[in-house]
């Protein structure tokens, strides 16, 4: 017993230690050593963010150096506060408050005392800085905008939040990341890759040399410059036209799917979200819940397409062989559905495909729509066919363009109506409104523009996209350079396009012809409703227009959606014609029209629902 006492104790101690050590070193030891190690500090070298140019190489976004005054509270020595505050351009209370905040955060680590000095203040301060111990100036790079347009598409950058940090281990606290638009979509390209240097620290947080002799250090990789597909001049011009109006304009080059302009009204100057007033400005935009400037209507506003959708129904009917261009329907200044009359403004009489389109005859398209459904034994079958055709134009689902936001729109299928009316308890009469683009179909302006591009191309489209070149090299993403075919044969497009061309010559948009350019278009006047104090109230119609030009060799396809602009030709048609002229000719020959479009606003129209008073809609103001 006595002999074994000490040996037992020695063995027990050994086992205890091995247990403790395996607990510490085998079971608790974490893997990400370098970043958690308090003895290693990572010092980052940030590359400049890539510039953004338009399709013609015109600068849109660049960088602007900004200067933050930093403080390390522990190192601050007695100073002439009044003089220093004077230089910084802040008062003493603010200075002391900020200093206290910094000290509370950490006495050892640098904090921002005054963010984003102007270049002038910086110049003044720079030479005197060495008198103030514990303070220094840190250079940062801010976005500089060489345009006041395109705020929502270009997007903005802001500091990473907790979620970004969790999702992407690349970022560390305090770094910037693209938050919306192109800045977000192409963050990886624009950002480049920061360089890192690992520094070995001692327990007093002093540098004592590189960690592992710099073996793990990396050099920064420059951010790449990109060309976007936007036409800077057209974009800026469109935004001017849009002033005082709500809605969206999207213009696409049909031959490539490149987005020439993407305008949302109302918009704001992208410069507002940079610099010292950023958060105040952002709040102002964010809390404007009536006009919603941060809401990009060109890609997010879903609404009924209105009459432009008639062209799709015509194409489907031709493809299904239920009509020929010569098939006629009689318009009795409207048509009858289940004993109820629905109105039409075309003037009445016999309509064929051609006049049906350019006069936008509701009765003609109601008849056409019924014929599609009559072809099949069951409504379900017909619905599937119709849905398949419509969706082949990129409607009813995300287009998968390269912007981080989007909406599906809605092309209802049989399930939708089964849910609404019950299985087999509905027929084409129930859904006849879809024939004229009212009903249950809804689209976004970008979908409408893409649909127009598909018609312009006579049967196919390229997925709309915003990125044109990276570092001067054209993109090769197959998603964007391969055509997507619709289910309609090429030959059926010609009569429809002919009708659209005559919309300008003979039809609903006679007033907006562009001298020397042959345009094909289609007006739309969309009834819409809102709820005021719970009461469904009709508002002035939305003015919609789609067009492409020139008819034979389309360079631009455009969709204009002006909320509460009344007739399709009134606002949308005029704006579309100005945009087309601007893009194809570079300047506007019709100065009077241009002046009128720039000056007219719809503010009074938008104020109506909020006035609390009775109001009239669809007033003939001019």
């Amino acid at each position: 017993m006595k002999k074994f006492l000490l040996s037992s104790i020695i063995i027990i101690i050994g086992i205890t230690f091995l247990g403790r050590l395996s607990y510490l070193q085998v079971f608790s030891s974490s893997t990400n050593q370098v970043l958690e190690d308090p003895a290693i500090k990572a010092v980052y070298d940030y590359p400049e963010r890539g510039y953004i140019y338009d399709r013609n190489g015109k600068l849109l976004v660049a960088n602007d150096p900004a200067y933050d005054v930093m403080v390390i509270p522990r190192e601050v020595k007695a100073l002439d506060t009044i003089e220093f505050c004077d230089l910084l351009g802040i008062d003493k209370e603010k200075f002391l408050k900020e200093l206290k905040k910094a000290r509370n955060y950490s006495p050892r680590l640098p904090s921002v005392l005054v963010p984003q000095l102007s270049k002038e203040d910086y110049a003044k301060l720079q030479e005197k800085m060495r008198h103030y111990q514990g303070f220094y100036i840190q250079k940062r790079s801010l976005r500089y905008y060489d345009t006041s347009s395109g705020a929502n598409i270009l997007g903005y950058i802001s500091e990473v939040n907790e979620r970004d940090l969790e999702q992407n281990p690349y970022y560390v606290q305090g770094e910037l990341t693209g938050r919306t638009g192109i800045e977000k979509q192409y963050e990886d390209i624009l950002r480049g890759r920061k360089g890192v240097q690992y520094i070995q620290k001692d327990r007093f947080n002093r540098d004592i040399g590189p960690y592992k002799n710099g073996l793990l250090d990396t050099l920064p990789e420059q951010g790449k410059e990109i060309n976007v597909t936007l036409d800077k001049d057209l974009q800026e011009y469109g935004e001017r036209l849009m002033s005082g109006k709500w809605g969206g304009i999207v213009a696409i080059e049909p031959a490539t799917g490149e987005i020439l302009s993407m305008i949302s009204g109302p918009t704001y100057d992208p410069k507002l979200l940079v610099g010292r007033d950023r958060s105040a400005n952002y709040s102002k935009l964010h809390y404007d819940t009536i006009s919603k400037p941060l809401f990009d209507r060109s890609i997010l506003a879903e609404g009924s397409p209105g009459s432009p959708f008639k062209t799709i129904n015509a194409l489907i009917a031709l493809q299904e062989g239920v009509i020929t261009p010569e098939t006629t329907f009689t318009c009795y200044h409207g048509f009858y559905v289940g004993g109820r009359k629905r109105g039409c403004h075309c003037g009445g009489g016999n309509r064929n495909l051609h006049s049906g389109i350019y006069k936008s005859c509701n009765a003609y398209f109601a008849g056409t729509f019924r014929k599609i459904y009559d072809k099949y034994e069951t409504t379900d079958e017909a619905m599937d066919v119709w849905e398949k055709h419509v969706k082949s134009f990129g409607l009813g689902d995300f287009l998968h363009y390269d912007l981080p936001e989007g909406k599906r729109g809605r092309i209802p299928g049989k399930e939708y109506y089964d849910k609404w009316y019950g299985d087999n308890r509905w027929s084409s009469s129930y859904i006849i409104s879809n024939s004229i683009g009212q009903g249950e179909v809804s689209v976004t302006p970008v979908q409408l523009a893409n649909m127009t591009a598909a018609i312009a191309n006579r049967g196919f489209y390229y997925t709309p996209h915003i990125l044109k070149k990276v570092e001067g090299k054209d993109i090769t993403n197959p998603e964007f350079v391969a055509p997507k075919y619709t289910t309609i044969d090429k030959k059926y497009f010609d009569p429809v396009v002919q009708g659209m061309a005559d919309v300008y010559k003979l039809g609903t948009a006679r007033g907006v012809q562009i001298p020397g350019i042959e345009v094909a278009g289609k007006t739309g006047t969309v009834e819409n409703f809102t709820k005021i104090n719970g009461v469904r109230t009709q508002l002035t119609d939305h003015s919609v227009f789609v067009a492409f030009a020139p008819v034979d060799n389309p360079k631009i396809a455009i969709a204009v959606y002006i909320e509460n602009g009344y007739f399709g030709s009134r606002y949308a048609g005029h704006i579309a014609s100005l945009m087309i002229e601007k893009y194809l000719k570079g300047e506007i020959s019709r100065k009077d029209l241009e002046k009128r479009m720039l000056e007219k606003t719809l503010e009074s129209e938008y104020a109506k629902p909020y006035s609390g008073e009775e109001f009239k809609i669809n007033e003939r103001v001019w």
Partner: protein
Amino acid sequence: MSGSSVLKRIDWLSIFFYALLVAIGWLNIYSTTFSETNPSIFNFDALHGKQLFFIGTCIVAIVTILALETSFFERFSSLFYIVSMISLLGLFVFGKTIAGATSWYDLGFFNLQPSEFAKAATALALAKYLSDIQTDIKRRKDQLYAFLIILIPALLIIPQPDPGSALVFFALVFVLFREGLPLFYLLLGFLLVLVFVTTLKFGTIWVTIFVALVITLFFLLKKKSFKIPIFPLISAALITILFSLSVNFVFNNVFEQRHRDRFSLWLRLEKDPQKLEQIRKTIGYNTYQSEKAIESGGFFGKGFLEGTRTKGDFVPEQHTDYIFSSVGEEWGFLGTASVVMLFTFLLLRLVFLAERQKNAFSRMYGYGVISILLVHYFINIGMVTGILPTIGIPLPFFSYGGSGLLFFSAMLFIFLKLDSNRLREGI
């Protein structure tokens, strides 16, 4: 006797373990103190250079010890003891103060720590006293004398202040147990520690309940024929409860705040996790850092000279008391486990050697050496890995420090010398 005969009969296995420990220890000292600008191992301005010099000194001392007459140590052990006690006393007058403790003589090139010397001397003196033909450890009077031999140096060292080193001397009671002191004392000591810890952690109430439970069980399980010693049982229970009460009093009134903090950290007495974390990072700073450093080494370690916390001096005293944390960081679990095994093997080997002594003095001295090494090793690694409260004593053969290395080595080799001579003694 010729030198070669010592080399033939000495226990080379122990020497092998010893040499490995010293070498690994030096490598880690080198790692904690080297600088990239002057990485030479012979840089005598750096601590690792000095330690190399101390290792050289040790070899000289070892050769001298092996060359001496075996009987020299037994004959002069009383003298060593007296000299060491005088040197401890002398500290009160001539001592040099380093880090608040007056524990050193300044010899110019080197600071001598007489408490290290006293450990070896006390082990010798105790062995000498106990092996005396007239001493009978079963006698109260002899027990008292033996305790006094241990107690005197401890009492001289406590006021330096160096309670850690003083504690080491009590390890020598293992020698007494080996030589026949009833194990009852050991059991008693163990029970006292148990009551102390239980009281701090759970309070006197639970100690009382536990005692009541034990007595009840005793009554329930006893054999019919067994006569219950009621009076001793009741008094033992009362003493336990009184002791438990006194623990609270001593803890709150006699201990200083820093001692209380160490215990509250060790036993996790602080319930608020935030406050506990705060204590861990302030009072428990050293242990916190060393635990983190060991943890960060993982299974394989970061590699020799690659320990970032070691380089950044994150663990205070990492070349002396906390040297084991650098083993943990740079060599990982493989390294720490190897060191623990080496100590275990060396100690077991020494127990084996002690047990085979025919000469009582040699055996008792051997046990003294083992006890002292064991308690250093146990307390040091226990502290560095955070399972024991902070008690600042070095890790034998490992920690930086000339006196420590020299006297640990001397102590060990005196025993190996005695062992090499065991056959002759037997004749």
